[in-house]
């Protein structure tokens, strides 16, 4: 029950979807469509996994007044407030993200700046990392560095002002060598994904059951 049933479910859905790809007409096509819609529905629920442990952990911290409980309280307050304004938006405007919904206020003035700034921090880290790590230690690293510099200079007006070489070289790098490598890597990855999918369907790969 605990292992066999899931393996059978995976095998059946997997093989069926490969089959219905080649035989898209009735009844395969209709059944495939139904499975796809179900998949979309179930996929939504996976987003809820983790929310419970988040709430539990921080609620415990607040209840026991542990160190940093104030931050946990802020976290929970943010969560509850967002849910409340979301529901208000749904009831009042038909959707939480109607342009006048209070949910959009929270979105625009908290989620957007928080997410964007967190990510902007990376600018500093990547700059300092590149300063430290990307030194022309050997010919391979030099190649990487030269390529990066040419590409950057080729894409900003200053580069073209220095020499017409940069935009031309930039284009060539993007269209020929870098494209070739990206394609090689991606073909390898795609074939890897295919073999992994086969292993999953056939029940050889079972790590998702843990």
């Amino acid at each position: 029950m605990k292992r066999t049933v899931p393996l059978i479910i995976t095998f059946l859905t997997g093989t069926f979807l490969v089959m219905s790809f080649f035989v898209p007409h009735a009844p395969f096509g209709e059944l495939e469509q139904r499975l796809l819609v179900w998949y979309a529905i179930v996929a939504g629920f996976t987003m809820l996994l983790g929310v419970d442990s988040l709430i539990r952990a921080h609620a415990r911290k607040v209840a026991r007044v542990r160190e940093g409980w104030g931050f946990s309280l802020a976290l929970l307050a943010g969560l509850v407030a967002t849910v409340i304004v979301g529901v208000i938006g749904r009831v009042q405007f038909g959707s939480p993200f109607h342009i006048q919904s209070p949910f959009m206020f929270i979105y625009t003035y908290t989620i957007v700046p928080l997410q964007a700034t967190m990510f902007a921090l990376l600018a500093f880290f990547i700059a300092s990392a590149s300063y430290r790590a990307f030194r022309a230690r050997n010919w391979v690293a030099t190649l990487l560095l030269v390529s990066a510099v040419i590409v950057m200079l080729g894409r900003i007006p200053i580069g073209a002002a220095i020499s017409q070489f940069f935009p031309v070289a930039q284009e060539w790098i993007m269209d020929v060598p870098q494209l070739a490598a990206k394609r090689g890597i991606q073909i390898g990855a795609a074939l890897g994904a295919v073999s992994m999918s086969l292993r999953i369907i056939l029940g050889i790969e079972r790590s998702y059951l843990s």
Partner: protein
Amino acid sequence: MVSIDFDATSAPELMPMLRSVLRQAFAKDVKVIMLGHIAIGLPLGHTALEEVAAEHDAEYGVDYVNLGYRPGYIAVMIAMGREIEDIFRTDYQGTPIRDMEITRDVHSYADIDLLFGFEHGAVIDYWVRYAQARFHQKMTFGTTAVMAPDAYPYLQAGQIEGLGTRGMPAQQWGHLLVIGFIVLGNLGYYFTKGKRKRSGETA
């Protein structure tokens, strides 16, 4: 059809692109159907859509619509190749898509002239591999600079029609980008012009 596949982390790069593409569309009376696969970014797309639509006096449900978001993007993309209503029975506000002029007769990719995706992650790969390959939907993408190198092979192989990036490091060059996108928008428009006339102006 416009797909919002980015969030606030890429907004400085992709929002100007999105706005200029939407402006192009409304100026040329191309219908816009919006949806998105990155839930946490979709409201950004919605804000831009409402903003640009207001500039052009476009009417919701007639000139543009926002379908919203559904989980499970692979399944959503493939199911839309057969019947969009199976996935998006209603728009983001719960209005049935069959009750709106713009989507009344839209059933699958066959009724969509061009998909314009704004991408900051792997969703572009899913669009190409799951929807373009299987249903031959014409696609053009605006990507972040990070994603652009990865997308070049698609362009060279003719799997996608166009690719745009911002890649310019400062706000003062924003206007250059707009010019670039106007050119790109026009190219996209040019390539789909014949088809659009036949199928009644839907993009």
